[in-house]
């Protein structure tokens, strides 16, 4: 039974991870790519690690819990740091309907789209 759950988790993790990498390749700017990179890739890795821990080996389970906790803490911080750096460098938002809520004019190819 656990083998079936582990297999299902592997397939789920691979699918989510593939979507994450596909998003990084396809999304038009760094701000949207961060969604794919941080959320999808983290969730995919978590599913794969849980699948690895389904064997029940205590040493593996302990390390898997540690790594997932570590990634859950560090991935959002790293994504925020990259987004902040891109914003400081005034990288444009290339998405068609982008809205720059920070008051700067990074969205829409230089036209102002500040939220009132």
């Amino acid at each position: 039974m656990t083998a079936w759950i582990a297999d299902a988790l592997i397939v789920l993790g691979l699918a989510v991870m593939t979507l994450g990498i596909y998003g990084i390749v396809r999304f038009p700017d760094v701000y949207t790519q961060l969604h794919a990179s941080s959320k999808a890739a983290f969730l995919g890795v978590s599913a794969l690690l849980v699948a690895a821990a389904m064997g029940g080996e205590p040493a593996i389970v302990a390390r898997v819990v540690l790594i997932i906790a570590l990634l859950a803490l560090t991935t959002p911080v790293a994504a925020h740091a990259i987004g902040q750096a891109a914003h400081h460098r005034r990288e444009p938002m290339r998405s068609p309907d982008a809205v720059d809520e920070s008051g700067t004019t990074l969205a829409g190819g230089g036209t102002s789209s500040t939220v009132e």
Partner: protein
Amino acid sequence: MRHQAVFLAGITWLAVLLGVAVLWIWRARTTAERLVALDAAVLVLVGLLGLVAGEEQRSYPLDAAGALALLSFVSTLAAARYLGDRRPFEQPDRPAEGPPP
């Protein structure tokens, strides 16, 4: 047997994804996008090491995965701070030089 095959297929597919991520590090349009791709490539590698550990039911690949995750976090943070602020750390306010007015 089927269980092992799923693990091996997963390892192979993740290796392909790792190749795509590394290719995207190469092809990225801006430095920030390159950083995103680098972060994602390390996450793929952590997942790959997790699958290797699960397939062999040994824990040592997970030690490498944990160290890699930590190193990736520190390096991403330092690179992003350098990219945005041109210095990785906040500088403490220096006391004004010379006599006070």
